[in-house]
């Protein structure tokens, strides 16, 4: 267990160092050079700091950050999958209000500690979802006139 955060630190800071070095490379090779003066400056500092952090992580001298435990990973995964499908696909594919209602209901059901077997639990979950959607619709569609992507059901 003690080694897990260290390995994670190496991977994470390695990724950041990779990003830093590649944006530095892009900044110094892209044209027009005039527009890249500032990015060059930033990306150089970025790359140096990122490599330093990476070095510290490899040497095991990282002092802050506690990584992610396997248990936390397991618990967040279902929620994360729902959230990703909701944001990157459903919101546009199904329409904002439809997708939000479904995602909201699924998330509440996934993480609500109340037993799944009781009818009353489900009723409560539906009521909360309906209440939230009413507020969102009133605020964004009613009051603020926000144009959301078309809904598939209405």
């Amino acid at each position, binding site marked *: 267990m003690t080694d897990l955060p260290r390995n994670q630190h190496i991977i994470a800071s390695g990724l950041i160092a990779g990003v830093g070095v590649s944006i530095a490379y892009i900044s110094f090779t892209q044209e027009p050079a005039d527009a890249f003066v500032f990015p060059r400056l930033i990306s150089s500092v*970025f790359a140096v700091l990122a490599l330093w952090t990476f070095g510290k992580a490899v040497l095991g001298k990282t002092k*802050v950050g506690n990584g992610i435990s396997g248990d936390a990973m397991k618990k*967040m995964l279902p929620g994360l999958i729902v959230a990703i499908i909701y944001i990157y696909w459903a*919101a546009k594919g199904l329409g904002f209000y439809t997708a939000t209602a479904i995602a909201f209901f699924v998330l509440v059901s996934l*993480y609500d500690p109340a037993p799944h077997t009781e009818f009353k639990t489900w009723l409560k979950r539906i009521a909360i979802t309906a209440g939230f959607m009413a507020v969102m619709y009133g605020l964004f569609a009613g009051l603020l006139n926000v144009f959301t992507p078309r809904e598939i059901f209405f």
Partner: protein
Amino acid sequence: MDFLFYMGDVFTPINFGLLLLGTIGGLILGATPGLSPTMAVALLIPFTFQLEPQQGLILLGAAYTSTVAGGAVSAILLKIPGAPANIATTLDGHTMATKGEGAKALQLSFLASAVGGLFGVFLLIFLTPVLAQWALAFGPSHLFWLAILGVTVIGTLDSSSVVKGLLSGCIGLWLATIGFDDIMGAQRFIFHPSVSGGINVIPALIGLFAIPQVITMFTKGRSSDDAEVISVKKHPIRLAFLEVFKRKAALTIGTLTGSIIGLIPGVGGQIAGLVAYDQSKKFSKESEKFGTGHSEGVIAAESANNAMVGPSLVPLLTLSIPGSPTAAVLLGGLLIHGIFPGPDLFMNYPQVAWTFIDSMLIGQILMCIFGLYIAGLAASVARIPHAVMAAIVLGLAVFGSYSVQNSMGDVYVMATLGLGMYFLERFGFSAAPLVLGLILGPIAEANFIQGSMIANATVGIGSYFFTGWLNWLLIVIVLASISYSVWMEVAQRRYTTKDDAVAKEEALS
């Protein structure tokens, strides 16, 4: 004392009604994630078409005042800063809310807002002619140094390691360069069509703060652990008053920093809260408590971002130059009634100008009263089970970031940044310096380029950026700020061991 003479006009039934409407509406709009004060005021402009000039401005002034303060509600309760002004409020405010002190945090924030706001408006009333010159004194070279000064606070802001703080800041500065560059129009780092318009600060803010928090709630799983249920502490308003006035240092630093920074065109509103937060942390005797739900953090941040409201209107009212986007929208509200702001505004339209300013004074007080009332109700937010809370925050984040410019791309940017930020946070990086980099990047870059263009045509870069007392003053402050950070890091390393840092993080989450 002209302003006292016109005070009566604020209390005619229609005007006072509009003032109430603007204040309450502003609090609601301000608390809506994604709706910055600028957008809120712009949304109200069409309503003022039907009104008398005086009435229209009362509505707009009240809305401006209370949207800035209203942003604290979502920042504290949901950890979604509605606008850059409220970033610093989340640092201690939300931590207080998670400890069940949401009511206290909100009360402190509204009281501090009112104190800062009143001070700012009084500056506007008494010192406008003097301040107008000050607002013009900042040219490209000064704004460049000011942005660099902002960058130097990055290392010490809400991060347990200076290197990681700086690295977070660099990530933010780099993110700011994505998209078309503002002056040349060249494309940079556009690796996905969603970012072709650059990264808009508000969706980025929402993602960076809200999404990691949603994921953290997921990691708690389906626990029905009783230890999770936070006891909501009632907090009498009387105690909040005492607390605000006991924290004189934070209140003074916040109010002064906010007023001074608010004057500087184009920079003010966005960073006033963060700079004030960082300054009062450096001056505080209890600086190690910042970030763990310390009342000084909330007081400094909120007094600063409301103190900036009054002074930010100085260049508009005297020189007819809008110093901030919100001031630009207010200018529109004046122009449709044929009122041109300028040095003789107070002579030609005293009734409009003074009533507008008076309504901002009264608006501050009304905002505080309503705010304190909301605080009583909103405290129970901590009692919402985390399953529901995660879903609410996620939904609000999506709607809020979409509504900024009706763009799906902004939602993707919000989610992607948020997802990345969750993992970064687990490895000791933090969102506040990253956002500060994102805000300061364009200011530093544009002013550097403009400055060097002027310098090349005239005196040369060296003497343009390094002569004049204001340049040197700023350079000295930059150097002082850097040395202070280095000294903090070397002399009193805040966390000598990993266990210390972990302990602090545990206390936080």
